[in-house]
């Protein structure tokens, strides 16, 4: 009887599995085709074959080691930008979130509203004044120019404030009675308690900054200062019909993110679900 019921349940779910699997193929195919194309040389790239006859790693050798491309450089730039902004966001966003959740002081509500309201300003509106700013300050073509708008994130403040409010006040008061300074309490008592939230914030911030395009495109005009997406766009625009190189470049730009994604898939899925439900 039990087994019978189970088979019926699976049989009923069969059409769903078929639809979902077809869809999975559509979702994955562009990635498969990209990798397949990146393994073909110029004589095979126009053959529409999923498995190249003579797969080669020459394209990767060209993209990563040839002196005529700057991919390793762009890779490094992206890493510097994404890591620095993420470290800064983790520190400042949790500090602001903590202060707004656990301190009582005049003007608190206004400050919170002020920070949250900046979430509604789209980047497109800000890039022009930012550009005027980095020109006036002579920051053009520096890491700082690319990074400064992302040093603190209003969304992160919102997220961290939610998490900080779940910390019991007694814990903080006990630390105060023990004579710890406020900054030390924040660093050694509070931060470890919100480690999972920090991990989520770090992952999303890293992904967001790694993929950012509009502002890095404007902030850097020298190829040596491009981030990977800007470099890839530039390289691809000039590569013309060298699609085997373009697909290899795309694969290289994606690789670190796919790695981050595979390692942190649980946190990423949970993080997305959380932002949706909290909104």
């Amino acid at each position: 009887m039990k087994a019978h019921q189970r088979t019926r349940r699976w049989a009923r779910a069969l059409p769903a599995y078929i639809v979902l699997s077809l869809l999975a193929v559509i979702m994955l195919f562009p990635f498969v085709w990209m990798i397949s194309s990146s393994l073909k040389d110029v004589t095979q790239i126009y053959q529409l074959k999923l498995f190249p006859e003579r797969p080669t790693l020459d394209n990767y050798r060209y993209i990563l080691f040839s002196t005529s491309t700057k991919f390793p450089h762009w890779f490094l730039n992206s890493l510097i930008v994404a890591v620095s902004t993420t470290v800064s966001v983790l520190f400042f966003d949790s500090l602001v979130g903590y202060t707004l959740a656990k301190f009582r002081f005049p003007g608190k509500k206004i400050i919170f509203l002020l920070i949250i309201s900046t979430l509604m300003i789209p980047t497109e509106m800000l890039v022009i004044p930012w550009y005027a700013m980095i020109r006036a300050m002579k920051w053009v073509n520096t890491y700082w120019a690319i990074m400064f708008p992302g040093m603190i994130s209003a969304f992160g403040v919102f997220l961290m404030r939610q998490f900080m409010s779940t910390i019991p006040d007694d814990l903080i008061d006990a630390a105060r009675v023990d004579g710890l300074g406020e900054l030390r309490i924040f660093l050694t008592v509070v931060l470890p308690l919100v480690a999972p939230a920090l991990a989520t914030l770090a992952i999303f911030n890293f992904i967001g900054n790694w993929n950012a395009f509009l502002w890095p495109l404007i902030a850097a005009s020298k190829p040596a200062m491009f981030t990977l997406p800007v470099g890839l766009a530039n390289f691809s625009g000039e590569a013309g019909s060298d699609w085997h190189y373009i697909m290899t470049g795309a694969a290289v730009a994606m690789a670190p993110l796919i790695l981050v994604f595979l390692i942190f898939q649980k946190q990423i899925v949970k993080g997305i679900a959380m932002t949706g439900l909290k909104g």
Partner: protein
Amino acid sequence: MKLSTKRSVTAYLFLALPLVFFLCVRLGPMLYMLAMSFTNWGLLRRTVKFIGFKNYEVLFTDPVFLQSLSNTARYAVFGAPIVILLSLGIALLLDSIPKGKGIYRLIYVLPYITPVVAVSWVWRWMYQPPPLGIIDGVLGALGLPAGEFLNSPTQALPSILAVNVWVEMGYCTIIFLAGLQTIPKEISEAAKIDGASDRQVLRRVTLPLLMPITFFLMVMEGIQFLRIFTQVYNMSMQATGGPLNSTKSAALYIYQKAFTNFEMARAASASAVLFVIIMVVTILQIRFFDKRVNY
């Protein structure tokens, strides 16, 4: 010093730098931008003069700007509902299967995580005309006529829109699925015991309970599609929103005005218009849904 005063001082010390940041990097620039949209500001000009609504007048007589606005409207009006409907359907299917949710969910969200620039170039490669593009290759093998995709003024916008749907779908699916999992199974089971069919349960129980999430996603995706830039920049010829401006979004128009033509004030007024549109659409949606969302 009183204890509460001391705490307030600490709070303001902690907030000082971030407050300076939000004022100088977010609010200040926005106000600066609005102010500059009423001047003849340009990077090459030494003196800046107040010229009233002149920029806005010129803007709304510029056929390219009007075209970019109508393109942006098309991205949002078609894109957001398609993403929402598709991902709602997928989430319902995922919720119904006994095993394997995790792996499907993982596959669907992959495009959302990867860099839009890279993804755009992969699709551009697949959209190439025969004999290069795989999509036309498959269509040909099936005996169907080849599509022109990015080379055609009528097909280019839907082709770019489709890529953004492919990117955003996984994100919405995860949120819908999380929402479905918060609905207690007892509710639908009780309805079934009372004699409701699966369809009735879906229409009368599940969908109404999903309304708040649908609304949230409508707002988020609406904004997302209204701001579309990277896909258009990377998938249109010479990154100009072609062919014949048929794919140019408002964000790309702003970028070109400011950084190709260096008409900063004109670009400032265009971005003020885009900002107002985003705000109005968001507020309208909130009002519309407020009436319909009920628990």
